[in-house]
């Protein structure tokens, strides 16, 4: 295989694996802030037990997120050297800001969060929890800013030609607040909150089904359900707003997301379907003119289609972009329905009576994870063939002097180590869940005496 394909496979694999963990850390961070906040406010020890329990799972998640994240930081240079020289001037400041403002904050407070229970007061511990949570939120900001700049470049000019061409910052704030960054940051945050909330919902639904830790599980379930309901609803808004930015700035991506080929004509909105790239036809269930309506509030409004772009300037994998995008939306819709129904039962005071609902929650932990992954696949594959939209092509961005054998070597190394890491993650999280927040032989109050 050639170097470009291998470099892309390696990047896709390492970033997708990495992206299992940071969203979970951000989401669990938010939930821990609520749990520990309730503990500080009410003094109810049950909230302390919950915080301590989730902290253990958070610690593993966070650790793997950091370890796999460092690899990403170096991989731009090792595998995408031309790209790194091209965007260094832009990317660099975002990365430096992430390191200093976000990473310093989260990693320094992490030590206190994990090991400081007996060394600092509950209030200081709570502040550390907030510090770690905010740090992880900021990390997402800078990294999404950098990626958004690749999608919708702004605040820059191109200097030099040929090999020496590169983008340089002309306006820092225009670069940071490029057309897509704000919507995408919010969208990514919300995806992360959902990943965390649904893990908590799943685990406590499991306990409720098994009739273990019933009292604290009800408390945790309600906290997470509250967050999940609000976020899945508002996720729809940021998603819609993101799509509008795509329509304006990356018409070829939008066209690929809905399989819209016609150069300029009314575009349909599919609920699901299958794109045949050769015949340029989509078979599936659609709302005729739906996409036109979503963008211009007019079913007849023309939308730029894929055929308006030369073949080499539009995404190659139209069906993949279409499918990933639609899976994300379907999951989003399902989560809205699920959380709204559960919240309705909560309001009626019958939340924990339906076993089938708890079963759905127990399994739905995977849904936000899948949505996060496919959402990014759609965003990144839809940007192709560009690595920096409109300026640098992916097939120009990789390291020219690295050989395919070298990448094959590192790819195999990553596959092996990450497979082990994933098994360890599943094993240890599963073990912690099976064991539960405290030894059931002891009652909670005794348990707390035992730990402190």
């Amino acid at each position, binding site marked *: 295989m050639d170097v470009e394909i291998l470099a892309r496979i390696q990047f896709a694999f390492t970033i997708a694996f990495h992206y299992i963990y940071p969203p979970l850390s951000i989401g669990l961070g938010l939930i821990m802030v609520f749990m520990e906040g309730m503990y500080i406010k009410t003094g109810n020890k049950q909230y302390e037990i919950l915080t301590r329990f989730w902290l253990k799972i958070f610690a593993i998640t966070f650790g793997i997120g950091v370890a796999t994240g460092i690899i990403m930081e170096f991989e731009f*240079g090792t595998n*995408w*050297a031309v790209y*790194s020289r091209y965007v260094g001037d832009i990317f660099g400041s975002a990365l430096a800001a992430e390191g*200093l403002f976000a990473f310093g904050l989260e990693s320094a407070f992490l030590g206190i969060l994990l090991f400081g229970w*007996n060394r600092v007061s509950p209030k200081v511990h709570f502040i550390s929890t907030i510090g770690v949570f905010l740090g992880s939120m900021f990390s997402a900001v800078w990294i999404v800013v950098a990626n958004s700049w690749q999608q919708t470049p702004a605040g820059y000019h191109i200097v030099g030609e040929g090999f020496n061409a590169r983008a340089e910052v002309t306006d820092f704030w225009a670069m940071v607040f490029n057309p897509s960054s704000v919507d995408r940051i919010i969208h990514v945050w919300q995806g992360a909150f959902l990943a965390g909330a649904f893990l908590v919902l799943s685990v406590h639904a499991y306990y409720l089904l098994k009739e273990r830790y019933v009292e604290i599980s009800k408390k945790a379930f309600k906290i997470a359900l509250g967050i999940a309901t609000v976020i899945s609803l508002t996720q729809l808004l940021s998603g819609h707003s993101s799509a509008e930015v795509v329509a304006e700035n990356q018409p070829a991506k939008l066209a690929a997301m809905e399989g819209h080929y016609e150069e300029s004509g009314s575009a349909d909105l599919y609920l699901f379907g299958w794109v045949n790239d050769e015949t340029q036809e989509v078979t599936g269930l659609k709302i005729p003119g739906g996409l036109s309506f979503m963008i211009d509030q007019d079913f007849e409004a023309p939308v730029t289609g894929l055929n308006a772009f030369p073949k080499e300037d539009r995404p190659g994998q139209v069906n993949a972009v279409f499918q990933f995008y639609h899976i994300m939306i379907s999951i989003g819709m399902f989560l809205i329905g699920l959380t709204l129904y559960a919240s309705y039962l909560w309001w009626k005071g019958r939340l924990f009576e339906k076993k089938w609902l708890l079963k759905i929650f127990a399994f739905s932990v995977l849904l936000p994870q899948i949505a996060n992954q496919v959402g990014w696949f759609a965003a990144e594959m839809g940007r192709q063939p560009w690595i920096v939209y409109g300026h640098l092509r992916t097939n120009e961005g990789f390291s020219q*002097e690295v050989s395919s054998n070298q990448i094959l070597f590192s790819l195999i190394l990553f596959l092996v180590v990450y497979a*082990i890491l994933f098994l*360890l993650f599943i094993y240890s999280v599963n073990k912690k869940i099976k064991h539960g927040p405290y030894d059931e032989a002891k009652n909670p109050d005794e348990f707390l005496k035992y730990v402190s």
Partner: protein
Amino acid sequence: MEYFLGIDYPTLWYLVVGLLFSGYAILEGFDYGAGMWHLFFRKDLSRRIAINAIGPLWDANQVWLIIGAGALFAGFPVMYATMLSSMYVPFMLFLMFLVLRSSAIKFRSAERMLWWRKTWDIIYFTANVFISFLLGVVLANILQGIELAENYSYKGGMFFSFLNPYAIMVGLTTVSLFMTQGAIFLLLKTEGRLHARLTFLLKKGMIFFIVSFAATSLYTLVFLHGVTDTFKEHPIYFVIPVLAFLAVANVPRLASKKKYAYALIFSSLTMAFLLMLVAVQLYPVLLPSTIGPEYSVTIYNAAASQKSLGIMLTIVLIGTPLLAGYFLFLYKTFHGKVKLDDTSY
């Protein structure tokens, strides 16, 4: 070219990157160093204490690597891209060992089984040794230069060309330096029999360091052409090797008096002075080309734009006091000897 306090921006950023990597070497130096003594402790409890000595700190210390690499990318994108893509295999191995090391810390004490803990102990030890060794290898290759042609394209071998005699010597010196640093740090964190064992181990570590340090220095002076040029031109810089030598000599003296906190300061200073020596010698080159000096990566042809450097210097000015604050708070909280509790690894 823009200036601040009479120094041009690329030079200022060179100082920033240098400081960040010194911080990384000093802080992760004792983390990796502690890890390289791991198999020298026989009892499981001693090994747990050694891991928990760095337990709350290592994640924060690692931030210096992340910020350092970020700063290199930000300020000298050409250097970041050229160095990492040329030294592909050493860096990939380095990264892999970093992942294995983090996993070992997290998972080692999670199970009671003996085979589990022993396996992780070996992985942990090996990872720390290779991380330190590879850092030395990279440093040595930067000092010697690599085969760069036009457009910063690398023409040399994949892996074994990096493992030349000099690289192995600098690699071993890095290992020994970190081991010394790690032993002193663990002496501050432990008591009782483990402490007594460490005083014995520290002596061995210092002998290892002094031997490899002397050999490497000699090799550098004899075989690396032009390493003393800067110093001949500017005799004032001779003060740095003198200071480095004094700092080295001070470590055994303070250790024998059991003043470990001061010993740690002086062994940290040793690293700082040695890196300063490298920095002064290389300046303004970042990565010399052995094919021709016109192909070398320098702070001027590698630098980001003046505008970008200006923004990042502002970010550093705002961020550094914050970072210093977090670190002071963290180190103050975990000051003193290790005490295992239910939150420990």
